[in-house]
């Protein structure tokens, strides 16, 4: 099991770690059904995260976010199981799932609007006890997003939409997790920042983290993808390496607009 402190070592050293030496557990779902109240959204999703970036694409309303929320514990699972390596996550609470090293960037960012930017980052490190690790990670976040440097004391709500997204991403990094669940990190970002956001994802991967990425910016996301799932109407319509997608013209057209 990799806990928060392991993550701290990895980022703290700055050298990154090799995947083979300390592989990130696989996050997998088997036959997951879930929904809201009586309304079922997911109809038996099976899923496995891969090293690097696992992308989830699909039309609006297909259940991507809902699925992500079953992974991080926000939406209770009706049926099926979710595991992280040897750990059974099914039915665990979100606050406990975080401690296994799984961080989430919710759709829309979900910053704490009346907290300062720095406090937002500190809350991200809530499960981390090591002050040095926190300081190191904060430095790293600012290196990735220099625009935040002179806004540390400002309330997060006073930032523009794009700046807020940087805060959210930075906050997710602060957890020191090995697995990142990112729900549309580039939405609403100016093109430059989209590059930055994807750059960040690459960095995370280089460092050995594993990323589950929901994106509507399919073109850019495919450049990073190691494996792709396509969801529609709460079911997996396709999964495979991106190379296989090109053979699925119909899928590409229908769900990806490509």
């Amino acid at each position, binding site marked *: 099991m990799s806990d928060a402190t392991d993550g701290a070592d990895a980022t703290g050293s700055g050298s990154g770690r090799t995947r083979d030496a300390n592989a990130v557990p696989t996050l997998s779902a088997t036959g997951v059904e879930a929904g809201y109240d009586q309304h079922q959204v997911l109809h038996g999703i099976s899923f496995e995260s891969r090293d690097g970036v696992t992308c989830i694409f699909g039309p609006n309303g297909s259940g991507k976010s809902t699925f992500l929320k079953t992974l991080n514990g926000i939406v209770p699972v009706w049926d099926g199981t979710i595991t992280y390596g040897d750990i059974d996550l099914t039915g665990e609470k979100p606050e406990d799932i975080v401690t296994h090293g799984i961080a989430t960037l919710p759709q829309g960012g979900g910053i704490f609007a009346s907290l300062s930017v720095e406090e937002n980052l500190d809350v991200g490190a809530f499960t981390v006890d090591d002050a040095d690790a926190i300081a190191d990670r904060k430095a790293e976040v600012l290196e990735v997003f220099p625009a935040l440097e002179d806004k540390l004391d400002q309330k997060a709500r006073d930032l523009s939409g*794009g700046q807020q997204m940087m805060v959210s991403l930075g906050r997710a990094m602060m957890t020191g997790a090995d697995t990142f669940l990112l729900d549309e990190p580039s939405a609403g970002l100016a093109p*430059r920042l989209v590059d930055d956001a994807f750059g960040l994802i690459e960095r995370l991967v280089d460092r050995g983290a594993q990323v589950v990425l929901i994106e*509507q910016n399919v073109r850019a996301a495919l450049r990073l993808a190691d494996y792709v799932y396509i969801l529609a109407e709460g079911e997996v319509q396709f999964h495979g390496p991106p190379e296989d997608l090109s053979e699925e013209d119909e899928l590409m057209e229908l*769900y990806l607009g490509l």
Partner: protein
Amino acid sequence: MTDRDTILKTTDLTKRFGALTANDEISLAVERGEIRGIIGPNGSGKTTFFNTVTGFYEPDGGTVHFDGEEVTGWEPHRLARRGLGRTFQIVSPFKNMTVRQNMLAVQTDDGRSREEKRDRVGEILEFLEIDHIADNEARGMSGGQQKLLELGRVLMLDPDVVMLDEPAAGVNPALESRIMDHIHELNDDGTTFVVIEHDMHVMKTLADTVSVFDSGRHIAQGDFEEVSQDEAVREAYLGGTTAEDDEVPV
């Protein structure tokens, strides 16, 4: 372009938040029937510009003209009924009402009968392909569906000008191209659009003219090609990516 008339015009429009000047003397003219794109870095004042034009913010200086009339300081609902519609960057459905009721709540001065209004709702929902959820409460809609509802509601105004704040953000490419088709279709029927969008693919496909904002100022204007070649724009906004970068690495 020269033979078309100006439908929306701002002159030195200024809006400040405390020490921050979010809109700094913005002068911008939109021709009747065009699709105007607005791009600019996050925080450059695009949304603020929308809010000031549509009456949500009191401007600190400058004027707004709409369809030959000065409308500076008008209340939003008055502008809306006059024919200036807008959407919000963060979708704002009436959560406790059904999709249909969301549409019916729209108020116009055109004296349409109740039946006509209901028919129009049906048409628009069908046009946007969300008629199957017409009687669902809006709170349960997905993000993309909410975007469509947002667009549908504003169409109920039968507006002359529609201002869209990031209509494609978070929207699936398939739906995105549908929205773009809708916009084109409406534009062909004579509706003028002002669109804020960060997706350069969308910008390139949609916009007749692009205005570029930076730090609250209107720094450039031209067609998409011109603007995207502009060094300052690339530096401030586009970075390495361009819309030409279309090929998919598969």
